[in-house]
């Protein structure tokens, strides 16, 4: 950890661009956090219906204040929209990318490391867990959803979950009992790699667009829904990358040396493998974040994704479709988007450089 900070400082001192980028990103984060308290002339989502499609820097009478970046089809101030768009964009994509990278890294590294026959689980657990899938689905999901749909009292929902908890408890006791029998105690190999690979294949074969379309027809768009879909489709990418890296690292001499020295699995993975595979994963992280920021506007183009009342870059940019001459709708949020993406890429580039140097020592 100390070395990390040290390297960071070295980079900071040596590279001007890194300094610039870090300052920009830090400023952005600060801006995003304090935005609601900034004295902006217009509130987000405020409609100035007397000044629609106002070009930027124009002299406007009666608006109360000038629209520096112009206005969109409903007279919303593009400056305010751009700033708040950054807030929305980061608030959505950051948690999504962090979660999906974490899931992807864990599963991918696990699959690569354990392969098909190095993870061992007792037969009792192996048998009981698939049996639990049905009550999990029925009492955990099916019943509560229908109880809500058909307006049954909410207390039934708790009843359903209570039943589920009871069943889980019973099966845990059963597990303990079974553990006493030798046959059940025997630890069989668990084909983790194959399972994860299959799951990745299934998930990544469905284009995310279908999922978004399918889910959009179930329920109206919301931030939560969008985030879930993005996490669900995003992790496979990191997982495959992490698995491939793990396969490569496993064949490296230092891993074999570590194993020969009798290091535990956890130590091998955490101390040896993970730091070495961080490079590609981190770069993928920066790119994922950047891609998510642009993806959101693509979804707006297709008319799915975020609800129309949420300020976003995509919403403003999509406004160009109803008036192709309103260049400022693309230029300002688009420029800001590009700048942010650029900063992210550069930052992760230097970070990768740093980690690479780190592993060399």
């Amino acid at each position, binding site marked *: 950890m100390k070395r990390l900070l040290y390297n960071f400082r070295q980079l900071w001192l040596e590279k001007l661009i890194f300094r610039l980028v870090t300052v920009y990103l830090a400023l952005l984060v600060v801006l995003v956090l304090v935005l609601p308290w900034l004295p902006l002339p217009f509130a987000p989502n405020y409609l100035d219906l007397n000044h629609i499609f106002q070009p930027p820097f124009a002299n406007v009478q009666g608006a109360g204040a000038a629209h520096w970046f112009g206005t969109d089809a409903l007279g919303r101030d593009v400056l305010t929209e751009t700033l708040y768009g950054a807030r929305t964009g980061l608030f959505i994509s950051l948690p999504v990318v962090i979660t999906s990278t974490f899931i992807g890294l864990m599963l991918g590294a696990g699959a690569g490391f354990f392969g098909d026959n190095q993870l061992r689980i007792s037969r009792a657990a192996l048998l009981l867990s698939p049996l639990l899938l049905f009550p999990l689905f029925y009492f955990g999901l099916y019943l509560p959803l229908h109880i809500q749909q058909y307006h049954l009292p909410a207390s039934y929902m708790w009843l359903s979950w209570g039943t589920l908890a009871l069943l889980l408890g019973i099966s845990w006791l059963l597990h303990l009992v079974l553990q006493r029998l030798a046959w059940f105690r025997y630890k069989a190999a668990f084909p983790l790699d194959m399972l994860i690979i299959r799951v990745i294949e299934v998930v990544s074969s469905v284009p995310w667009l279908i999922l978004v379309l399918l889910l959009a027809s179930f329920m109206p768009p919301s931030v939560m829904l969008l985030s879930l879909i993005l996490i669900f489709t995003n992790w496979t990418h990191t997982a495959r990358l992490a698995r491939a890296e793990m396969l*490569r690292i496993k064949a490296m001499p230092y891993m074999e040396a570590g194993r020969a020295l009798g290091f535990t699995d956890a130590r091998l993975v955490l101390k040896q493998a993970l730091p070495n595979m961080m490079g590609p994963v981190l770069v993928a992280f920066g790119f994922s974040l950047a891609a998510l920021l642009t993806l959101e506007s693509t979804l707006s183009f297709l008319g799915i994704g975020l609800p129309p009342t949420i300020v976003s870059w995509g919403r403003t940019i999509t406004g160009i479709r109803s008036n192709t001459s309103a260049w400022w709708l693309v230029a300002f949020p688009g420029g800001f988007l590009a700048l942010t993406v650029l900063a992210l890429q550069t930052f992760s580039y230097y970070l990768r450089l740093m980690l690479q140097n780190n592993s060399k020592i």
Partner: protein
Amino acid sequence: MRYYLLKRLFLAIPVLWLLATLVFMLSRLLPGSYAAESILQEGNGYYAKGSAADRATAYQQYLIRTGQHLPLFYFSVSSGATPPDSLLRLLPEAAQHNLQQLAWHIGNWQEAYTFWRTLQELQLHAGPAELQALAPFLQTITTTTNVQQRVEAARAIIKYDTASPLARKLYRLALKLQQQHRLSFMIPSLRWHGTANQYHKWLTGILHGNLGNSYRDSRSVTDIIVETSANTFWIIFISMLLTTLAALELSIKLMQPRYKQWRKAVMPLLFLIDSIPLFVLALLLLVLFASPAFLQLFPVYGLGYGYGGQTRIEQITHTLPYLVLPILCLSLAHLPYLVNQFYNALSAAESMDYTRTARAKGLPYGLIIRKHMLRNALLPIITLLSDFLPALIAGSVIIETIFAIPGMGRLLVTSVQARDYPLLVAIVLVVAVAKVVSHVLADICYAYADPRIRYQSQA
């Protein structure tokens, strides 16, 4: 190796089957259906095009004719309160909802159904004046979740027409429903449907190579997909090839010290392109290269006229200009990502010992990259490429919409919107097959790129 690949393909079959089954089920869960949208939809409202009852009959006939009245799967596990599929499927969705709600509240579908039927009959036999007077009560009785309210409404109906046997029956039933055990909906019930189900029909069809017919134009799904996938395939294939080659070439160039100045200019430019949303990029290209206001180099939309009696070469030269912008657009959109990844992979290889050895031997740097580093950098590159397909498909939706090219992406969106299930499932299946093939190819490439990775073919 061959054994491994066979095993690999063999293992892919359950994945494909699972995926197709999932999409088959998921798509059937969607609200609304093609039949309901096209048959039950009222006219424009200025005059009645047929009565609601006639529409409901036509709707049922359609479902039966196309086999959509059958249960979905061999068996179903649902709450014991849910009425069986054979009953529900023939009803319009709003009615299904009302009946289900009633059944869940009562906890017994048979009694709920009797009550619901009585209510329907009452409405059918009531005259216009009567209906008008009863409207608020009928509305309450169909949608309320409160037992007391239901009884009150039934009492109000009987007050209006004391002589009607149906009204009396309704009231009696409402009273009876008051004393129901409402908790029985918690117990799951398993229903066996046998082979007379939609899934069985579909699966046997697939085994015979028949993916079904589109609901919209009753053409065979296979025909439609063969027709449209060609366009998408060429666009995706050419743009992927171009992007990969360009990215390789570019990243190799950028690795070399003498292009260091370039790197500073090219990398930010690529990042900039990457940050432009695809549809803006497409519109930008259109406005720049296909508009009289700037440069009119390419045609705006479509794939051009195919006049009969052309040779293949004529056809290709004719279509080519139409493909330039879409392919360019898709390539540009994915170039930055690939260049960056290739570059990273290469620079990781740079720090390896063999590179240092090669340099010490005094080999020219360009040659070191191509001969030594590239081979080692291939692993992550292969992973990336094999994972690229869904992104390309998603991209092709936008490209095909903007450039008006009939392809799979557009077909996918329209089939979801129109609830054309056979087509939807088939498209997902085709994409999945393409995906599996690309993963298998990736595995072969892995083995060739890095002999250290051994597929446990002997084990």
